[in-house]
């Protein structure tokens, strides 16, 4: 993607029908460090790589609890991510107060998508430069995606522990050889009867130790299929509570951004 005369603001179309500002904002997501999500019938796991710039500084928070049944992992401009998380928390809590029941995730997503769309159609705005977890987004997420694509069909019936293990292995794939430690990744879980929460470092390290003891050789995987489990369009989805009554998987092609 190179600089051109049609990319100054978001309300300028290129002659080939592209909005460059929107595409550049998606680039920001790709440059962010990886975030991964997996879903079974009963649980959803969100995991991400959390590397600090230096040993002296703390990590940038990438996973946010929106409500007991909703959590979000972000990649891209963290500031934009925090603003959107605040919006989502607000929507979730207002719904809870008025209707005394949890906001259906699908509706929150649609509201968020509509909010994001506005920024692509006002000359004085810019698109949000953040992706809220689809299935694997961020830099070097392709390696994670490849791992997940081979296995996603089995996730539906996975146990909670296996799902977390798969998430950690997928995270490790994005590290390109670097050793996976609980200090550089964050894992969160939500499930039927289990409110959204982030696992503490100790638990994560124990889980890492458990599967690193197993040999690195993964058994040859079945034919890679063309339909990832949690795939959705656009960069604006979250890992959702499976208790929302998991809607049947749509026949969607893998995203190639």
């Amino acid at each position, binding site marked *: 993607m190179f600089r051109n005369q049609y990319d100054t603001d978001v309300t300028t179309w290129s002659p080939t029908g592209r909005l460059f500002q929107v595409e550049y904002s998606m680039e920001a997501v790709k440059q962010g460090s990886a975030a991964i999500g997996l879903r079974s019938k009963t649980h959803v796991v969100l995991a991400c790589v959390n590397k600090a710039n230096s040993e002296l500084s703390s990590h940038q928070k990438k996973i946010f609890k929106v409500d007991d049944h909703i959590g979000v992992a972000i990649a891209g401009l963290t500031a934009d991510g925090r603003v959107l998380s605040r919006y989502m928390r607000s929507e979730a809590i207002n719904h809870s*107060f*008025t*209707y*005394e*029941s949890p906001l*259906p995730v*699908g*509706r929150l997503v*649609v509201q968020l998508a509509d909010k994001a769309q506005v920024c692509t159609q006002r000359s004085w705005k810019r698109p949000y430069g953040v992706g809220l977890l689809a299935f694997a987004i961020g830099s070097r997420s392709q390696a994670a995606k490849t791992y997940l694509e081979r296995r996603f069909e089995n996730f539906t019936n996975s146990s909670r522990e296996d799902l977390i293990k798969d998430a950690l292995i997928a995270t490790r794939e994005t590290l390109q050889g670097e050793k996976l430690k609980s200090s550089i990744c964050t894992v969160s879980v939500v499930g039927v009867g289990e409110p959204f929460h982030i696992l503490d470092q100790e638990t994560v390290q124990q889980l890492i130790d458990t599967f690193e003891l197993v040999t690195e050789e993964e058994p040859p995987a079945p034919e890679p299929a063309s339909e990832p489990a949690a795939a959705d369009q656009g960069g604006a989805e979250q890992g959702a509570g499976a208790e929302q*009554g998991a*809607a049947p998987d749509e026949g969607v092609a893998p995203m190639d951004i």
Partner: protein
Amino acid sequence: MERKLRFKLVTGRWNPYVTGTSVVAIKYKDGILMAADMGGSYGYTLGYKSVERLKPVGKHSLLGASGEISDFQEILLYLDELILYDNVWDDLNSLGPKEVHSYLTRVMYNRRNKFNPLWNSLILGGVKIGQKYLGMVSMIGVNFEDNHVATGFGNHLARPILRDEWHDNLSFEDGVKLLEKCMRVLLYRDTTAVNKLQIAKITEESVTISQPYSLKTFWGYSAFQNLTVGDEGSWLDMVTGWAVTTME
């Protein structure tokens, strides 16, 4: 949208004009049963004889109201809008009875806070994904859930019967019999009740509101035969008795 009514802050009252009397509702095996008569009283007189006080709301709920009928109609407008916006999402989610009950509580309480109450007691019942729900909201926003609820006089005359005779998993026939027993007592003892009622049923599959019908009553008690002025138990007899006792 809301009518701002002239409201006397001194007395803190607001006058209802056309009112409905008790609504009684119970949970039964397949869902909820609700009963209400069709009278719209105009003070002590009977103004309207075909007022439908039980209405379905969305796919999963049933609303019964007592109190000011015009306020009930306004609430139905609010609910129309609520359900419309719920449907317009065009997704697999829909507002269940718990959500509607909660919404109504917020509306009633907010109006009470603005000193412009909706003069109703509402009963909201329904079934969603096998879960039965039955709740009540008063005009000041007090709300609660129970296995059997009633409004107005129903609380004093029907609830005691229900406390004794309600049990889990009532059949439809038994449920109707129980409600009719309550409605009959109300008919005898509530002066604003009329003998024309509807019973509504809501289950997972559907809502059905019966055609209006009347209950059989019995007035052939010997004390009611061959009446003369001043008979024992008549108002004249009671007033005289009171006058005598106060003079003593």
